[in-house]
């Protein structure tokens, strides 16, 4: 027993550790704390393209940049700073706030020397989960697979002076007690110009458009309450981030209000309520929407593509696109939004994409895009 018991305990411990290493007892940690690496010898060899990608993503999640860069093929057309910037973002873009939370990979083709893998990357961002589909090319080098990272073309902005002649509305509040909104003047005149309630995969959706009919900017929130046959409220929700909250005079914004897990059949009435407050606002930065077209993407989904062009002289850190889609009668049949994960430098453009449900793709005849934005230090 003197030796048998210690040997038994050590053997059982090693066996249990091995069982956990082979996938039985894994547990996730927190996402935001990214540090450390596996103990030497415990990182699996990149014997397959999928394992090579898994090792790379593990290092990228933990921001082990040197190890990640070392896992790239020598044929990659990128240096380490560009590689880091491509992955982690720059200029206060959405990507700089994002962490890779998970991914699904699917091989497109593979030979003994090279492979193509399509990866759906799941990012955790401040504005919610964001998905990104990216194709990776891998080559077999030495005794393992390496990722070929493509050359990164970072936008360059020449030194220049950009004259601006935009409108701006300032607000003199009555004092510190007034908070940010003015309470001493009438609210801006804002009106809901369309409303449509539909059933979606997740529940019910109320959507439409709202217009600021006034000559002053308005901060707008659209609320909706679903009412059943006996006049009782089933649920009430607000437009949240599916609206451009600050509307300049005469500006129109789509809105969408989601009611998860509510069956539209139980709804007899929808009570709409729009609240508007006078706020300071400016027309800058001016962002143009170019080359909009509705096409299927590589996965066969219907996606509205286009380019955002920053026509002003300041960086837009996080652009947000909200699109309303109309049928042949001009009725709003869907409202969708999407965030652009790269910042819009002055006088440059970035592509955007907004997905619509496949079932609605055939109905859509026209669309209207509104661009919302977040710029660091200008909230």
């Amino acid at each position, binding site marked *: 027993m003197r030796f048998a018991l210690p040997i038994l305990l050590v053997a059982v411990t090693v066996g249990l550790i091995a*069982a*956990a290493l082979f996938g039985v*007892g894994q*547990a996730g940690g*927190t996402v935001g704390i990214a540090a450390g690496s596996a103990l030497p010898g415990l990182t699996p060899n990149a014997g397959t393209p999928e394992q090579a990608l898994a090792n790379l993503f593990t290092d990228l999640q933990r921001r082990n940049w040197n190890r990640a860069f070392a896992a790239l093929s020598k044929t990659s057309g990128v240096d380490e700073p560009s590689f880091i910037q491509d992955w982690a973002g720059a200029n206060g873009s959405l990507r700089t706030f994002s962490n890779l939370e998970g991914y699904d990979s699917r091989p497109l083709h593979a030979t003994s020397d090279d492979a193509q893998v399509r990866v759906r990357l799941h990012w955790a961002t401040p504005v919610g989960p964001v998905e990104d589909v990216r194709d990776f090319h891998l080559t077999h080098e030495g005794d393992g697979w390496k990722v070929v990272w493509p050359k990164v073309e970072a936008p360059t902005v020449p030194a220049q002076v950009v004259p601006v002649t935009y409108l701006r509305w300032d607000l003199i509040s009555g004092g510190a007690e007034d908070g940010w909104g003015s309470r001493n003047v009438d609210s801006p005149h804002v009106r809901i110009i369309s409303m449509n309630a539909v059933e979606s995969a997740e529940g019910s959706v109320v959507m439409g458009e709202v217009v600021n009919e006034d000559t002053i900017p308005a901060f707008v929130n659209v609320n909706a309450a679903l009412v059943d046959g006996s006049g009782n409220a089933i649920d009430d929700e607000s437009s949240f981030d599916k609206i451009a909250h600050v509307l300049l005079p005469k500006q129109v914004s789509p809105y969408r209000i989601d009611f998860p897990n509510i069956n539209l059949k139980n709804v007899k009435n929808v009570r709409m309520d729009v609240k508007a*407050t006078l706020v300071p606002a400016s027309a800058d930065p001016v962002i143009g929407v170019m080359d909009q077209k509705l096409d299927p993407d590589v996965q066969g989904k219907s996606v509205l593509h286009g380019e955002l062009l920053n026509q002003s002289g300041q960086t837009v850190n996080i652009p947000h696109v909200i699109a309303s889609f109309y049928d042949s009668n001009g009725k709003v049949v869907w409202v969708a939004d999407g965030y652009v994960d790269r910042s819009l430098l002055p006088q440059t453009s970035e592509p955007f994409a907004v997905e619509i449900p496949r079932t609605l793709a055939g109905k859509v005849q026209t669309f209207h895009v509104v661009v919302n934005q977040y710029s*660091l230090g200008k*909230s």
Partner: protein
Amino acid sequence: MSTAEGYSRPIPLLAIVLVALAVHGPLLLMQLPAGSFDTNFHIFFASHYVHHWFDPWNEKWFAGFSQTTYPPLTHQWIALLSNVVGLKMGYMLVQLIAVLLLPVGVFRFARIWVDERAASYAALGSVFLGALAFLVYQAGQLATVASAALYLNALPYFYEWMTEASGRSLIKGIAISWTAAAAHHVTLIFGLVLFAGPVLWVACIDARDERVAASTTGALSRAIVFAIVVGLGVGAVLGPYWLSILQHPIHQVPIPHDSRANLLLNSITAVNYFVIPYGALILALPFILMRGASLRRLRPLLLGFWLTFIFGLGGTTPLPRWLLGRAYEILTFERFTFWATLMAMPIVGLLAADLLDRFRAKAAVGLSLAAVMTIGAALTWLTANPYRPAGSVNVDSVVAFLNRDGHDTYRYLTLGFGSELAKVSTYTNATSVDGDYNSARLLPEMTHYGAAQLTNAKFYGSAGMGALRGMLDHANRYGLKYIFVHDAYYEPLLTFVGWRKVDTFNNGEITAWSKDDVPPAHKIVSDAVPPAWQGLLWGTLPIGVSLLALFLELFLPGGRRMPVPVEISAPAEEHYVA
């Protein structure tokens, strides 16, 4: 006394307690734990008892929650002491008492297994444990430390009752066990298996070997009596807790915690949850195994240590998940490492005695260095580890904002404040929808996501931000009007969902955000409000049993006649004094 005698004699317990006071006293009086993860949480709970001793319903977090969801003893003692020294120093004093009780408990627990000399070394070593420093100064787990210290003090009475049928031991053991439960329920539940199991086993061994007067049947039957009385008492003392947990079992989505990670797959996690807590004890592991297995009386302790050790490894092995089931996703596992180090100490005491017998002054120097380096590494790690709480935030301006101009008629949220959320809550009159105690959350916006506090939402990825979005979406429902941001990460979301920056504090370090159409907060109806009789029980029984235990310990002295563990005695050839 010759130098040889000096080495062969046990260290007086009073001297050990004074060493503990010398080591931890200054650190606690300097309020080093003030920046730990849970200190502000404990102070927040205590602050409620200061104002509402008999009403455990607290409106300040989660739009209302019951403090019967957490054993109250340590918080009530802080509340009592705060009347004299204030809340923060009250916390430090209660923590200091727990730290001073720990070596006493380790000494008495070790005496069940080893002779007085080795037990004294074990007690002295426990003062320098990395796991203790980790829990006190980094994690701020006041209740875990206090309960473990009390529990270790109760176990010798349990042993004496089983082996000697001593009525005094029964009464004292029961009173201290109730007190330990009133400090922390989890320690009692797991201590029953991990600590009391080996003690029961060794009592049976001693009875069978006729080392004690009791028979095996007698020891077992007395153990059952002890367990029944303790169980009934704990049921009563923590009655409101059990009722609340029965009414609202923890069904929330599991929240990730790094103590459940596989330590071998992340070096930082391994350092944080293994290297720092064990420190120099890692070098003693082979000895613990060999010596624990070589002596029959020590085998129950060795097996208890091994099981606790495996649990402390979290997700490094699948055993905790297999044995605990769903509870695995609720518990955190650093406390098991602490318990494992405590269980190892009697055998480590033997190692120290052997080393001193063999290498004299060299051993004394080596052991001292190992002990000091262990606690030194744990204290250094406070500033070096990436898991440390975010730097202290001056929240005075936030508290002042909430307490003026009727701002406290609305609810508020903090983002990026970490454990300072509890500090804001302690000193403001306003109420929040967030809170820093996962088991008390009932709001669906929080329980439906695998994330803990909203103020730390980003650390839980999409789950955390999903919970935050859900809460912001229902801001009007909860009267949530003010958000204080200490991390620019959250600003894009607030901007896009319609919040506007209204103020900045501390030279821009903190920004205040507001939403204009939010109505004043109203009371959220909850079925979790404890009735008045539960408040009365909660305010009397836990503190009452602690006073009873104190009274019995002081005024009901009883000679402890621990069995001489004859197998363990090793003849010392020569003794030297350092």
